[in-house]
């Protein structure tokens, strides 16, 4: 069923080779400029009326954000996840709050946690979870949560650990590590 649907969609839209993860779950990458029309077609014609989730994946190394729009056809028990790749720099997505009002919440969160803007989405710049956050959007891969916590919170004093291998070397053969004679 999913194969037929993808074949049908491919006639009108540019889609990459899909990943048929399970019989009821397919991932496919779509073009950003075709997303809206694709979502409407899926919702209104193909029965994918349920927006399961909308979230982002940060492919830092590739300089891309992946937006995942997961849609579900409840009657047929099929889930189709559309990936849209957008550049990380000045990341902007197209708002879909008018298609699914609940998308407003997702887009607000993406704005706050990933720094992806959705112009036109209601209250998109309102604080969602974070209050008074001044650092970079924290769910970006380059936000180092460990460094942040080390710098923000105090480590409990007096904690020291030992690596078994190094500890044994120090105790048993401190100078014997053979290295090519110099």
């Amino acid at each position, binding site marked *: 069923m999913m194969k037929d649907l993808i074949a049908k969609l491919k006639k009108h839209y540019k889609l990459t080779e899909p990943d048929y*993860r399970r019989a009821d779950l397919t991932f496919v990458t779509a073009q950003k400029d075709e997303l809206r029309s694709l979502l409407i077609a899926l919702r209104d014609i193909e029965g994918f*009326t349920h927006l399961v*989730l909308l*979230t982002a994946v940060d492919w830092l190394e590739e300089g891309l954000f992946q937006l*995942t729009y997961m849609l579900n056809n*409840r009657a047929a*028990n099929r889930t189709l996840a559309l990936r849209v790749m957008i550049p990380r720099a000045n990341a902007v997505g197209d708002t879909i709050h008018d298609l699914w*009002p609940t998308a407003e919440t997702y887009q607000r969160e993406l704005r706050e946690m990933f720094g992806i803007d959705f112009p036109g989405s209601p209250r998109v710049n309102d604080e969602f979870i*974070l209050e008074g956050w001044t650092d970079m959007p924290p769910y970006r891969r380059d936000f180092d949560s460990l460094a942040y916590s080390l710098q923000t919170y105090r480590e409990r004093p007096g904690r020291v650990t030992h690596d078994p291998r190094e500890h044994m070397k120090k105790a048993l053969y401190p100078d014997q590590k053979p290295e090519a004679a110099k």
Partner: protein
Amino acid sequence: MMFNLKTDRSQYPQPGPDGKLEIDLETGKYLKLWQGPNHPGITGNMSVELTVCGDEVVAGKTHVGYLHRGFEKLMERRSFIQVFPIVCRVCVPEPDFNEYCYAAAVEELAGIKVPELANWMRTLILEMGRFNSYMMFLGGISGALGLGVVGQWMTYVRDLMLDRFEELTGARIYHMFILPGGVRGHLPDGFAGRMEEVLRTAEKYLADVEKVMFRNAVYKRRTKGIGVIDPKLFEPYGVTGPNARAGGVAKDLRKDAPYLVYNELDFEVQTGKDSDIHTRVDVRYRDIHQSIALIRQILQKMPKDGPVMAKIPNVLHWQIPRGETYIKGESSRGEYGYYLVTDGSGYPRRINVRGPSYTHAMALLEHLIPGTNISDVAQLMVSLHTYPPEIER
């Protein structure tokens, strides 16, 4: 300034050119009122910022962020086994769904087949978790209505189920029992008998709840016809679970997309038709009885013996090939799911938790609030069965 809003709508905020209500606090006609984050009618740490006109609410905004721990980010720094102790903490009252969804997602991407008995055990645990979650819900909704005694009874019954969780999993709240690859152990000896005692006690107390709550004139007056969700809103607002079933949508993932061993169990999808607070509570009340029946059924049908753990790679350097998947199930609140993205390394690239409260308590609640009475906001919120940690994972 005194006026009767019911008869004199002239004082009610009027729509502006963009169709939105114009609320000018300077006029002195409106009052900002914070419900929560510390309020008996709030099931967890969130708050609703209400704008009221008289005793009618004209606008509401949900505020979360009181317990954000950045779980999804935290998980990206953990190896696949190290994520396991974290996931349950995303949802206190029904933690097992997180364990199941995460484990199943990892198993799928890593190509691990779970032994049959483990699937039965998982189903059992999920139903026990659902039961407990509903206990918290009944306690919550009765608390929101000032019916404290039901809350006390439900806390007691939940505690008895926690005893069973404790003997089965080794912990009361965060069970950490559903490990990627299976579950950590078999049923203890005599477990079914002790479970039966709990279920009987539960049934006894639920009969009392029936009398005290469902046959209570005040309760009926305050829940019937109140907080109605138009079924047309279900799809646009992503409404799932009992909230949708109370509006006549017979959708239950246990039936529609059977996972674990649900296709081997007999049960019916509980629905209602009025889509008001009363029906939503009623659907859940019937679902509790169904959970009780399912627990009995599972204990009776499950294989008596067999392995509960598949062979898994050395967890200390477990790497999973690049891929992504989504695992979902029917939690007590609706569709619960884990979206897992892997990149071939020893750490998840991204984990996104899809909790039903995310849609129910944000956009939907904000949509439902205008026009309600201040005193009804609490039970309206609770009737959506919200667990704030799902919103701010």
